[in-house]
């Protein structure tokens, strides 16, 4: 009887949703995601068909022109797909836009781990031909 009375009297009161747990989870998630946020953006272009090799002694990637080749043979220069036969020409045009002496000599290569050196050699020679002498091979950091 008493219980019934209590329920009837609180009917008009405001119902509060307890959001403390939600706020806690959100805050932890935001902190975690912000800590591992990568502002440089090079990795956003990795295609699902491209599995990079792993290495322990890599250095910072840096912001330079990006050339990627996936295991199906698709070649991307700065995010745009091109054919390997016109690679030299496209690289030459990219080089003309940024003809600086030192930093502009570098190029990032993102290449699938299963690609043969024969194919890589063609790409290297095209890079050499237009003046990209410093080659940065992108690798995934080895986790163990």
């Amino acid at each position, binding site marked *: 009887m008493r219980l019934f009375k209590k329920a009837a009297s609180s009917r008009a009161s405001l119902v509060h949703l307890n959001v403390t747990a939600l706020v806690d989870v959100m805050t932890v998630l935001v902190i975690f995601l912000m800590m591992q946020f990568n502002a440089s953006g090079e990795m956003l272009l990795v295609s699902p068909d491209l599995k990079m*090799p792993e*290495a322990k002694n890599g250095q910072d990637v840096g912001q330079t022109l990006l050339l990627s080749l996936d295991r199906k043979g698709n070649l991307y220069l700065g995010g745009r797909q091109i054919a390997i036969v016109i690679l030299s020409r496209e690289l030459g045009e990219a080089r003309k836009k940024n003809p600086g002496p030192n930093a502009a000599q570098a190029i990032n290569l993102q290449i699938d781990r299963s690609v*043969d050196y024969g194919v890589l050699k063609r790409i290297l020679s095209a*890079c050499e031909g237009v003046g990209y002498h410093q080659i940065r091979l992108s690798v995934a950091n080895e986790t163990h």
Partner: protein
Amino acid sequence: MGRRSYEVSVNLVPYIDLMTTIVTFLMMTAVWMQASALEVWSKESETLNAAPTLQSQPIVVGIQENGLVVFQEGRPGKTITKRSSAHDFEELGVYLRALHEGTAPSEEIHILPDDSIQYDHIVRVIDLARGAGFAQIVLRPSV
């Protein structure tokens, strides 16, 4: 006399809105793989001023189908044969470290892979050379 209520509530709605937006944005742009780069020079770079000064007879690591060969002063110094049909990178790592810490420490090393060698194996050798202390790594086309 009416009962005075002291219940104070903070309006969390804008905070939750903001958090949800930030979480969504960060999750969409999240990169779950940390990338880095291994810096190499290719053969023709020796003509450049910015390129490392090449020694007359650098150490060369040949990556071949049947094993790894380390050339010193132009002659094959050590051959590391395959162990259970895979390249023995551990032994190469130990050998390169010993070479770098040896009597005449060299900063430069050349990598000379065969055309059929997978990129994964080349990167492994470059990584080992970098780990052994060689600062200037030159990737050469096979002859």
